[in-house]
């Protein structure tokens, strides 16, 4: 596995965004630099998120793990998505969980799931397939899911708060259970190539460094503004999300647990300044949702 300094170098070299000056890009990368400062690799875990929770609560009697710590496993035996949906995690996929201390203002910490989605999308696209993001952070190539992201928050033993971001990417795993046939894909299926998982992991962590940094940069820009009563316009992270998403303009089904209980159909129009999905209903009225999920119709 790359050393942390090599990871930071990779983040610098793989930052594709030329709209920022070298000074600004350095500042953004400094904000995101803790990502991957500690990486624990396992051949087999039940769930990366659970192991990260264990590390926070029990793993170290002296202090909690540092922000940016990563738990990475070759396979998971008890993985699951939201609402306990099954997530198939055999060898060949990339499965990791990232710990991040809650140091952002609420308006920006709620954008962490967007940062994770963008990082995954950029990683996958840099390896060949053109991935797109479905609000909030579902990753798909064509109409098939290639990556899943879970975001949770937890209180540490000293009442400090952490974000846990679980990421799974189908890389070299090409066999899926029956219920996922035709719905899931993998990098290997899309490109016909086999990938070095360590390389994919390094790329992903580098992109997480950049995008978490961009989130802090967005907060910094807002703090420097004249009016800090509300976030009035999208920051650079959400602008980047819009470039990578195919949600605006799509007809969608919306629901809190949309697979079990879709609530309504609408046309996705845009996201607001903090990432809420703006949709137009059949009667022409508009609604903005800040949680829940969508399916493309």
């Amino acid at each position: 596995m790359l050393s942390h300094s090599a990871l930071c170098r990779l983040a610098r070299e793989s930052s594709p965004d030329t709209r920022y000056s070298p000074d600004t890009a350095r500042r953004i990368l400094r904000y995101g630099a803790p990502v991957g400062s500690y990486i624990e690799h396992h051949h087999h875990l039940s769930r990366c998120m659970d192991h990260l929770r264990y590390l926070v609560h029990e793993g170290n009697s002296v202090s909690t793990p540092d922000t940016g710590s990563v738990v990475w496993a070759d396979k998971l035996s008890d993985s699951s998505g939201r609402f306990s949906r099954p997530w198939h995690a055999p060898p060949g996929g990339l499965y990791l969980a990232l710990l991040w201390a809650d140091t952002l203002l609420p308006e920006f910490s709620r954008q962490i799931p967007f940062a994770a989605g963008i990082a995954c999308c950029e990683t996958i696209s840099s390896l060949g397939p053109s991935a797109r993001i479905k609000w909030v952070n579902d990753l798909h190539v064509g109409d098939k899911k290639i990556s899943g992201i879970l975001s949770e928050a937890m209180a540490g033993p000293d009442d400090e708060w952490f974000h846990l971001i679980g990421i799974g990417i189908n890389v070299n795993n090409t066999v899926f259970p029956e219920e996922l046939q035709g719905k899931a894909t993998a990098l290997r299926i899309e490109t016909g190539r086999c990938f070095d998982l360590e390389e994919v992991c390094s790329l992903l962590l580098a992109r997480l460094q950049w995008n978490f940094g961009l989130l802090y940069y967005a907060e910094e820009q807002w703090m420097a503004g004249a009016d800090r009563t509300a976030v009035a316009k999208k920051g650079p992270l959400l602008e980047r999300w819009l470039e990578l998403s195919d949600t605006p303009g799509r007809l969608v089904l919306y629901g809190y647990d949309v697979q079990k209980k879709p609530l309504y159909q609408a046309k996705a129009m845009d996201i607001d300044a903090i990432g809420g999905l703006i949709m137009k209903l059949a009667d022409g009225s508009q609604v903005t949702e800040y949680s829940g999920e969508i399916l493309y119709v």
Partner: protein
Amino acid sequence: MASEKIHFDEIISKYRSDPYDYVDMYAVHTGLVRFLVDDGIEVQGVSGEWNHIPGSNLYEITRERNPKVITSKTNGTVSYLNKEVEGKFVEAGTKLLTVRHPLKKKEIIEAILQEVLYLFIAPERARYYFSMDVQSRIDQKGARSIVINPGDEIITMSLMKRDTPVYYDGEAGILHSVYFSPGDSIDQGVPLLGVCPEEKLAVVQKIITRVKAEWE
């Protein structure tokens, strides 16, 4: 939590003489204000199956040439208008107007209960559901059999596909009132739960019975 010596007559006569809720509206951010209603005008609240149809336009606030129309959350009559700020630049939080909302019997019971219960409010605008443990206990025995203590993980807040446990920080008691359905979108500051210390449950029940019996 109010004292056990609750003056029923006083509470009921208060609502009989003035059965209204006064909803104050404040500037949502700094900006130039232009009112879109007059004193005494009737306004409508949000409606529609998903609460997606906005209420009546109340005022417009413009910041950096970006106008925003603020609508009424509740139905009622405009009972106060801060006319002095019409056309002027205001700070965030400046009181602009008040909507007088006529209370229904059910709302009066809720309003009284909310004076005597410990209210646990939504920390952010998000969707909320009970933690798995609390939900299974509610399913088995009903909400009023649940005793919650400070520090208990009772609710999960879901915002932007991120789930955050919410810990109870009020006084210990019975889960008396639940003001949301799991998965509902709740605004920041709106009560989620009303908790009643066990020894005061009888008093609270008495209030409900009395209001139901006496209110036409």
